[in-house]
């Protein structure tokens, strides 16, 4: 009987799934995207989140994605950024000598570290960087109390 040996891939799968979960999020996928198995996976844009005094900023690297192909969605403390990186045209007589960039749809959701004012969320996209600015709700902003 021939049994396909899958122990290693399944361990890698499990590790990848774990890393992909929002708990671990960054920056592990950079390493694992090198595996051929994962290179075939969907686009996995890198996400950076910073909490500042008045707002939370989420920065995502999505080079090669047109502004029209990006969607930013906020609901109940969770920010979701999705979109698609369209692959460039390769004609029949042309060939790819190397392909490290991944194309296709992507979607990432992240739970925000503090309540934000949903009405005032803004997003800008320049040179492949999407920056979402989420102003914090007044009551969670740090307050200076004057000592009398």
């Amino acid at each position, binding site marked *: 009987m021939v049994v396909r040996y899958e122990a290693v891939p399944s361990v890698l799968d499990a590790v990848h799934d774990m890393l992909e979960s929002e708990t671990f999020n960054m920056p592990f996928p950079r390493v694992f995207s090198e595996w051929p198995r994962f290179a075939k996976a969907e686009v996995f844009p890198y996400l950076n989140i910073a909490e500042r005094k008045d707002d939370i*900023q989420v920065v995502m690297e999505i080079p090669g994605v047109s502004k029209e192909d990006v969607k930013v969605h906020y609901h109940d403390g969770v920010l979701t950024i999705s979109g698609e990186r369209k692959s460039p045209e390769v004609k029949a*007589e042309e060939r790819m000598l*190397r392909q490290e960039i991944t194309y296709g749809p992507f979607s990432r959701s992240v739970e925000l570290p503090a309540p934000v004012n949903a009405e005032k969320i803004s997003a800008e996209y320049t040179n492949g960087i999407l920056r979402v600015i989420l102003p914090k709700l007044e009551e969670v902003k740090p307050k200076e109390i004057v000592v009398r």
Partner: protein
Amino acid sequence: MTENKKNQESFEHGDSQNGVKSDVRLIVPPVDIQETAESYILRLDIPGADKKNISAQINDDTLSVSARVDSYFEKDTALFYDNSMPMEYRREFSLANDVDTTAVNALYDLGVLTLTLKKKQQCLPKEIEVM
């Protein structure tokens, strides 16, 4: 058109060799290389760069690309997932003999640097007329 591995390694391990912690994050940008009848098209992901901070140079048969990108947040910001360091993108390629190094075109759009390297005229396939 191959990657210049030797130099690549020295980029990646640059800071550990010096024993000094670097104040930039070195990144090797992923690349797509597409060969057409007349040219090689290289696409490199360099998100967030300013056009003037990108450099592409050809020395002999080596193409070097580098770019500096500011950190995404101010230094004292509380970060959840990120490092607040500026980033330096670097990658080198050894050029094939058929590349015309005098005819290189560079375009930076949507965070992707596209370099088009024309093949030498004498290396292009020729149609020979049958008499």
